[in-house]
């Protein structure tokens, strides 16, 4: 797990609490434990229509959803992970099955299937194929320093990062402000006007 070893890739955020849902520093660990439990990971039911399941798990156990204090807090940090399980059915497999179904339909009914009939068949095929393809499981780690109010999301890709950010913001009713030159400038009170591009560096005047 990248949070524990190997090269480190993460994004750093300042945690801003929603005014209404603001919790005192003392009560924050209990509130975090509660929110983790409320949004805990639930395994995907292979018989259901869903092809994706996501939720919080313990950092050290991808099946652990008890979130005992000893498993969730270390020093000033709250540590946990978001688990995303997904069945990925290749589009080519669905297309091939759908073509076979369509040929059978034409033979039986002497007409082409309508749009609704085709869509229903596609859903049915997805459902059948779901059990044939394995689950892909991914873990994205999070550490939140309760003392300095910063969180780090350990996700390599931008798409995954956006998903993890959304999940954390919703679960804890917080806003995560990324640490980048533009946000640091705002914190330092530098006026927006002073941030305009330096024309001679980017040759802006020539474009």
């Amino acid at each position, binding site marked *: 797990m990248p*949070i*524990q*070893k190997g*090269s*480190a*890739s*993460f*994004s*750093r955020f300042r945690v801003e609490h929603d005014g209404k849902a603001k919790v005192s520093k003392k009560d924050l660990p209990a509130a975090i434990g509660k929110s983790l439990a409320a949004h805990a990971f639930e395994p995907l039911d292979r018989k259901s229509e869903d092809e994706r399941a996501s939720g919080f798990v313990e950092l050290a156990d991808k099946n652990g959803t008890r979130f005992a204090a000893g498993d969730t807090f*270390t*020093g000033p*940090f709250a*540590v946990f992970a978001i688990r995303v399980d997904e069945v990925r059915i290749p589009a080519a497999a669905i297309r091939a099955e759908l073509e076979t179904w369509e040929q059978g339909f034409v033979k039986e009914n002497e007409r082409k299937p309508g749009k609704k009939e085709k869509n229903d068949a596609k859903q049915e095929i997805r459902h059948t194929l779901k059990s044939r393809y394995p689950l892909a499981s991914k873990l994205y780690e999070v*550490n939140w*320093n309760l003392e*300095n109010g*910063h969180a*780090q999301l350990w996700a*390599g890709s*931008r798409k995954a*990062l956006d998903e993890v950010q959304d999940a954390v913001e919703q679960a804890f009713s917080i806003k995560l402000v*990324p*640490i*980048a*030159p*533009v946000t*640091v*400038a705002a914190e*330092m009170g*530098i006026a927006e006007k*002073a*941030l305009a*591009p*330096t024309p*001679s*560096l*980017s*040759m*802006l005047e*020539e*474009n």
Partner: protein
Amino acid sequence: MSKQREEARFLRGETGVDGAAAEEAKDKGELERNKAREQFLRGKAWLGREMLTWLLYRSESAEPLTTVGKLPLSLLLVDRLVLRGIGGDVLESTVRGATAPYSPLVRNALDRGLLVHQARLHLEHGERSYEVTLDAEYFDIKGAKLPKPFADEDDDKLQERLETSEELAALVRALIETFLELRSSPAWAKTEVPALKQWMRDVEKPRKKRATG
């Protein structure tokens, strides 16, 4: 259209042999430039690009850029550098090699309007060293090498690694603040940018470089 006019357009390069190819090529170039411009403006990415370019310029001397917790912080750009621009023929260029970031080729490209979009930084803070890749738009910490933990127990190791990851993030923030303080001061336009431009053009006299590690 008469045959003579068709021929004249072809000779002016407005059309290709099929009568449309040149126009399509022009459209593709415009699309690319528009995309490059959009990337430049999105999330004020230019600010990050100017900062990484400034870090390249300032890091060539052996001087620390700032101090964090009373310890000097110095850096070098190493290995791989991505340059991006918004006009001209070259909109993106990647260079690789241990000292490639400081090569005359890169300075030349910077002088022609490209800026550093992504860089790998080797940071030295007191006795600790880190490596990290930063990109101008998000400033995410990518592929960072952190100091090895001293602790033996797993729980202690985790806490120590989290602390060192925060230390690295704090060093990056200190660099951002140092840059922004200078950039928002009158000295930026008055002395720093002219010196930076001069450095880009001064390819014949490279300054003394430090070795990594």
